[in-house]
Structures are given as C-alpha cells and as structure tokens.
C-alpha cells in the first residue's frame, strides 16, 4: 500500500529547497498559470472544484472559506497558519524546512485568488530556523519575479511577510493567531464576526494552514476536478499524516484520503509496533481527538469514517500507544499540556484543566480516591460546550474517550494504589 505523493512528490530531491532545483521540477508553474492565464475567480473555481478541506484540523472547505470575503473594496489579507503546535503533528514543519518553495508558491497563488496583495506566514516561535529558510526562499522568489510589485509582469502585487510567534499553542486558533500577529496576547476573539469580515487589522482576512495552501499548487497543476477524483466524495485529495510514538518507522506519510486504513498507515508505512510490543490505542488526529482502541484500527483515514468511529481526522497527527504506555500517565501528560496552554481567558478551561490535572496526578501517583473517575467525568462535563474556544473541548477528548475505553486501567490505578504496568510504564 504505497503513498500517493502530491505535496511530497519532490521532497526527497536534493536541493529542492533552492529555487533553481524547484524550478527544474516544475516549480512555480502553478503560480505562473494562475497569474498569467487565469482570473482570480477561475483559480477560486478550481479550488472549489477540488473540494479541498482545511488541513489544520477543522476540515472546513477551503474554497468556501475564500468565498466568504466581502466584495467591498477593502484591503484583504491572506495569513498562513504555520503555528504547528498540536502534539503529534510535524507535517508543516517538514514542508517549511525541506520544501519551502512549495509553500511560498501556494501562498502566492492563493493570495492571487482571493485578491490579497499582502500575505503573512505566522510561524511558531520554535521554527526560528524555518523562518530563516523561508526568508531565503522568499528572497529567491522575489529575485525571479514570483513575488513583488509586479508578479511575472502581470501588474499584480503579491508579497509575503514572515512573522515569528513566541511560544503559545493557542495561537494556532485562527483568531488568537490574528491577535498575536497584531502584537497582542494570543486570546481568541469572539466569532462572529469571522476573520473573512473582520480579520487582521480589522480587514477581511483568510487564514489557512501550511498544508492547505501547499495543496493549492498540485490542485492548479492537475485541475480541481482531477484532485477531487482522488480520495472519497467528501474527503478529496491527499493528506499528510505524522506517525509518532513507539513504532519502528515513525514519519510523515502522504496518502489518498479514504483509501488507506489507520492499520495500514501504522503497520505498513510506519512499520508497526516495536519488537515484541502490541498496540494499546491510537490518537489519530493530534492530541485533541478521542483515542481509538486496537479493535477500531481498520477505520479508513478520511473525515467521515473517523467521525463515524467516534474520533476525528484533525491535524493527522497519529500518536501510537503500546502495551507499555500507561493511559493515565499519557492522559495526565496531555492535561498538563492543555493546562499550560490554556490562555486563561475563560473560566471553565483555565480552572477545569487545573482541576483535571490535579485529579489525574493523584491517580497516577497511586493516591486516587474511590470517586475520582466520576469526578473526572463531572469536571469534564463542566468544560464540554462551555468554553470560549475549542481548546477546552480539545483538552478533554482523550480523557473522556479513555475513561470509557480504558476504564479498567484507570480503576486498577485506584484499586492497586499504583500503575498496574509497574516500573516499565512509559
């Protein structure tokens, strides 16, 4: 069961991060086609026809997001969300560090389509080296006329400004990102108004993920309809999945949506569990989605099938837990993450993640009390549907699903006063 490489088609070509090599492999042909042969409306139509859905986690149709921009003559901005911070997810990182021109071409073509002269790439602060790589690539692209005041002699201005965040998971939420880009604390904004109406500096703005914007390049090369023939009816095209945790061959893999199962991804592409180990569970869409037990691994990797299985495709960050991984300890680790990353703006998330963390800590330490599992359920319900942004829901996804699926392991911690896996537990 092979990968289907569109974004990663040339990623292993030596020097593909340099514009000449990228050009020799068909680089910037999509942008050239868009800017010289197509109207912005025609580019939008191709993206609409492709049925491309946002690859950052929410899966919202990209063309529709673009079409929400009001036609009122105000300045428009395109913002690329390169704040990749979802635990288990490292696909955008690989695009930025190894294939920067693919992203730049995608950003430029998308900016053209939505009528934005100015695009931003907001990188998480930890991608400082990625910032330097993109800085050099942007300079190369300007030198060749792919960016600047008169792109390829078309009379159109498209330029990209890089911006380095400073360490805050919440800035992956698009309105928090916009606040951060404006030099503020990264608190999410109330929606509506959506960024399409009131975005960066109050102007109409589209925010798209790195992988989403990169996918515009092959979509324009092959045509939206051809892209839509890949995958399933509602989950079209290819998607990058990051597989991590105790497997033999962790990595990023690009597969056709709906044509590969979670089992095939983890066993055939990522090599399966380590010698002598068995899989205990898999978190398939980044740490913010429910965990799946081994009996559900034959689910197809597409938005609908994963939803039907009770979880989400999310960012495509696949975290594998094996029989030495303690579910309580792993869930505690995630809760500590959300506790640290809660922006503190709304009470259920700020307080709830602290309380959940404390209860999980004592269960993990062997000091759990008889009613602690009920307490975890009750605290979770006080977060569910009651937070200002999706971070609260994200924080309880693995906990709530794990409390059902791995109830015995939680209970054993309380009954035995220690981790039932003993010293070897990770």
């Amino acid at each position: 069961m092979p990968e289907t490489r569109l974004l990663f088609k040339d990623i292993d070509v030596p020097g593909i991060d340099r514009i000449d090599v990228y050009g020799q492999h068909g680089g910037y042909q999509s942008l050239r086609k868009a800017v010289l042969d197509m109207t912005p409306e025609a580019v939008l139509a191709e993206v609409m026809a492709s049925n491309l859905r946002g690859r950052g986690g929410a899966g919202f149709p990209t063309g529709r997001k673009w079409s929400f921009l009001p036609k009122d003559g105000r300045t428009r901005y395109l913002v690329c969300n390169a704040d990749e911070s979802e635990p288990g997810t490292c696909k955008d990182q690989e695009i930025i560090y190894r294939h920067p021109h693919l992203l730049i071409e995608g950003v430029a073509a998308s900016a053209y389509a939505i009528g934005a002269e100015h695009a931003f790439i907001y990188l998480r602060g930890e991608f400082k080296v990625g910032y330097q790589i993109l800085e050099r690539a942007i300079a190369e692209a300007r030198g060749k006329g792919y960016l600047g005041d008169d792109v390829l002699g078309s009379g159109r201005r498209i330029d990209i400004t890089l911006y380095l965040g400073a360490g805050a998971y919440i800035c992956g939420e698009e309105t928090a990102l916009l606040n951060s880009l404006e030099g503020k604390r990264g608190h999410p904004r109330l929606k509506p108004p959506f960024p399409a109406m009131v975005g960066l500096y109050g102007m109409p703005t589209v925010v798209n993920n790195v992988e989403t914007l990169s996918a515009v390049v092959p979509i324009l090369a092959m045509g939206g309809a051809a892209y839509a023939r890949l995958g399933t009816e509602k989950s079209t095209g290819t998607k990058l999945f990051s597989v991590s945790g105790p497997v033999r061959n962790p990595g990023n893999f690009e597969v056709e949506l709906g044509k590969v199962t979670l089992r095939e991804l983890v066993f055939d592409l990522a090599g399966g569990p380590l010698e002598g180990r068995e899989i205990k569970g898999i978190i398939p869409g980044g740490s913010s989605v429910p965990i799946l037990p081994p009996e559900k691994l034959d689910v197809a990797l597409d938005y609908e099938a994963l939803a039907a299985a009770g979880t989400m495709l999310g960012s495509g960050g696949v975290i594998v837990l094996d029989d030495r991984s303690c579910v309580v300890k792993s869930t505690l680790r995630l809760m500590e993450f959300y506790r640290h990353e809660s922006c503190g703006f709304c009470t259920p998330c700020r307080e709830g993640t602290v309380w959940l963390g404390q209860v999980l800590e004592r269960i993990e330490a062997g000091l759990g009390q008889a009613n602690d599992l009920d307490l975890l359920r009750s605290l979770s319900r006080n977060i569910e549907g009651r937070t200002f942004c999706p971070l609260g829901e994200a924080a309880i996804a693995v906990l709530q699903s794990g409390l059902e699926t791995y109830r015995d392991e939680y209970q054993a911690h309380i009954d035995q006063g220690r981790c039932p896996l003993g010293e070897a537990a990770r």
Partner: protein
Amino acid sequence: MNGENLAKARELLRHFPHESSALIPILHLVEQEFEYIPDAEVHVIADLMGITAAYVESVLTFYSLFHRQPTGKYLIQVCRGLSCQLMGADELSSFLYEGLGVQRNGTTPDGMFTVEAVECVALCKNAPAVQINLEFYPNMTREKLEAFLDKAREEVPTDA
C-alpha cells in the same frame, strides 16, 4: 538594546502595515541580545512604541519563549510532548537535571546551561527531540546530550 538592535527595532516599527505588530519581533531582538527580557528594556520598548510598560509586560508574559530571568548561554529545551514522553523524554530531562545540578527551568551557576522541559516542538517523528538555542536536535539520546555538553564546555572556558 545596543545601537544595532535599536536601529532594527525602529525599522520594525515601519515593517508591518500596523506598528503594533512590531512588539513581538522587538521582544525577540531583546531576548536574543540579553538572553532574557530585563526590566529596563521593557521600558525602552514601551517608550519606543508609545505604549505602557504594563502592556509590554502583559504581552511578553503570555509567550513561553520570552524569559523574565536570565538564561544560560545554551538554552536546552527538552520536548515533553506526548510522543517524546513515550520515547523517553523524562530520562533525558532527569539526566540533564542531575548531570548539571539544576532543577527544571534552572540555570547552572556559571551561566552556561539552562534546562527547560517544554511543550511539543513539532518534531514528533524524531522523538525524543531537544532544542538547543532553538535549533532542533532530533532523536536524542543521553550519549548525544553528553557529547554536546562536553563540546560546549570545551569551547567556552568556564572562567570566561
């Protein structure tokens, strides 16, 4: 800020469509120069941008990569994302805490090393991952860390 960074900061004020966007990039300049954000610089930035020091403080304390206390010449950040924890991140941080005699977020007395355990750095496929001065060190082991520490100590005499 030194003269060069002050000039860069003034340029940053004009770099974005809106001056407010310059704040975080300017904080990065200060963090890079001093290896933390000193009190005095909070006021320098406030004056430069025409905003209050309290506002600067409110923004900088929101973000994990800005430090209010001095950090070492080498900022070693051990990723404790779930994937890295499953692959042995705890052993790496314990090794560093014990080997360098520091606690979490602590700095060695000679000002050489600060050790932090940080949230997911997006290098999950190369777990366990470490960042040193924001450069990625994938697939880390105790041995590789040891080699790094030895090399760093050789390059800079401790009495320097």
